[in-house]
């Protein structure tokens, strides 16, 4: 047995990353970021609002949470839509109680289909960021560049039409991108994307269409990962978030730089009756911590952008 000799060629073996999207950087030795009101930790809540067609498209891949059974999959279609009818309102009330503004990552199909919900979100002062068109619009290498550009444009146009403002941020379904995505997002005027989970703070990416910020939306701290994938309890989820906050707050104190606690929340997961009391208590606990603030992605991006030069 032998491998193609090219398998032992290492074309990108050099100092720095093996791509040009962003340079390596040590969180602890780069200039610290200070938050606008001197907060030690900003909690950035990102709520996914997703519409799953009952006719799933598995190309290039099936979105997490999508239909599972033979057609028609009523159980998944309706339990995902539960999040858009009921769960999201529980979350909005909980945010309101805690005085928190969040970023809502929305399929443009949500805006087209449920304008009343969009109004409630906008009136409450939350940010809306783009999250593809619907849950069939997954991105990965293999999607033609023109098709990806068109999907991004359709998502932004749909959201802009309903909300009256162009979204500043973008979250890909399952945080999955193609090699073209960062440049296409920059070209479309997106200020920040949330897909790369390699840091605890925002940093700048460079694309052929100019710069774009990445706000790392920690997937390990998401309700999907902890509650659905790892099958842990809501009590454990809340404990893990509190532990994360405690650690980041201590680090902010010793390093003098602000920290970001990225919480990705899903209405059809967290917004269930039996989970809400603990989630509300978590938000109230966070709200009561000294040096803590809630911020939207746009606020964090604006602050980081000014400081990153």
């Amino acid at each position, binding site marked *: *047995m*032998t*491998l*193609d*000799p*090219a*398998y*032992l060629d*290492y074309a*990108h*073996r*050099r*100092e*720095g*990353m*093996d*791509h040009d999207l962003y340079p*390596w*950087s*040590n*969180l*602890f030795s780069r200039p610290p970021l200070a938050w606008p009101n001197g907060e030690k930790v900003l909690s950035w809540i990102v709520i996914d609002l997703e519409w799953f067609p009952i006719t799933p498209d598995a190309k*290039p*891949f099936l979105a997490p949470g999508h239909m599972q059974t033979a057609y028609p999959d009523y159980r998944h279609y309706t339990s995902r839509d539960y999040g858009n009818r009921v769960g999201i309102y529980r979350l909005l009330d909980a945010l309101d109680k805690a005085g928190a503004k969040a970023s809502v990552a929305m399929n443009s199909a949500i805006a087209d289909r449920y304008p009343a919900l969009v109004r409630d979100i906008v009136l409450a002062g939350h940010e809306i960021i783009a999250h593809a068109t619907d849950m069939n619009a997954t991105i*990965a*290498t*293999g999607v033609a560049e023109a098709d990806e550009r068109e999907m991004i444009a359709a998502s932004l146009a749909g959201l802009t039409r309903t909300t009256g403002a162009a979204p500043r941020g973008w979250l*890909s379904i399952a*945080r*999955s*991108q*193609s*090699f073209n995505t960062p440049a296409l997002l920059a070209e479309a005027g997106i200020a920040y994307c949330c*897909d*790369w*989970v*390699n*840091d*605890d703070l925002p940093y700048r990416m460079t694309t052929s269409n100019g710069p774009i910020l990445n706000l*790392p939306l*920690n*997937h*390990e*701290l998401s309700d999907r990962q902890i509650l659905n*994938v*790892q*099958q*842990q309890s809501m009590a*454990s989820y809340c*404990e*893990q*978030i509190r*532990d*994360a*906050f*405690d*650690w*980041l707050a201590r*680090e902010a104190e010793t390093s003098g730089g602000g920290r970001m*606690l990225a919480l990705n929340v899903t209405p059809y997961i967290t917004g269930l009756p039996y989970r809400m009391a603990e989630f509300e208590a978590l938000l109230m606990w966070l709200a009561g911590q000294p040096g803590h603030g809630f911020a939207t992605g746009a606020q964090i991006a604006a602050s980081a952008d000014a400081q990153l030069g």
Partner: protein
Amino acid sequence: MREGEADPGLYDYLPYRDRPKIAWPDGKTVAVWVSPNLEFYELDPPANPHRKSWPKPHPDVVGYSHRDYANRVGHWRMAEMMEEHGFKGSVSLSVALCQHVPEVVENANRLGWEFFSHGIYNTRYSYGMDEAQERLIIEDSIRTVREATGQTIRGWLAPALTHTPRTLDLIAEYGMTYTCDLYHDDQPMPVATRSGQLISMPYSLEVNDHYGFFIYNMSPREYAQTLIRQYDRLADEGAQSGTVMCIPLHSYLIGQPHRIGAFEEVLRHIAADGRAWITRSGDIADHYLAQRGAVA
């Protein structure tokens, strides 16, 4: 190994009961070593015909960037905490990290950590290599680590745990002392090789943070309790036998803000217990070999 045979012939059976005891220094009952995997994964590696690098088409953004978290954030948290509690690392190193992020390698070297090879990249697998190709990656590993750190590697953990039937024979021939790829015992054991003198160094998959979090789906605190129970048991039994406990880590996992605090309790517990010889893999190998004399 005996290629193609049902028993690969890696070692002799030796029951745990009534073995000669390994006496660790200063009457310690368990030798504890922490093994941070300092890795570099490629965004767009070439395909190995026997194993996919990434589950998704490249770029696998979450897979890649999650691991990249280690070199930007996780390592620094983990290393500072280990130093504070008196734990030196024994590094399972993707040696190309010496080129890509020399700062991480220099930091570990300055802290007095030991390095062994975990291949060139954790996205290049040994499956399918011929002997000449496998020699190339072994020689590359020895040369790269020596140039970057001044250390001569003494051990091997196959890249992404991918082996060939020749790997153990070859690393022994190149003078390496231990392999971390065999999981048959809680003590070092002689390994049968064509030449040289190789021993198995107890590493662990069962209490590896990757298994803890993604095979057993433990919460951070459950994982910390698991390590403490593993330690307590091995420290108890080690009074009779002399045991080894390895804590294999990936800082993109253990260095996350919701996990690192719970992990600190583990280091605190072991450091305070008094029965642990907190050391490095090469020191364990030296002590074992000196005590056992030349192994077969």
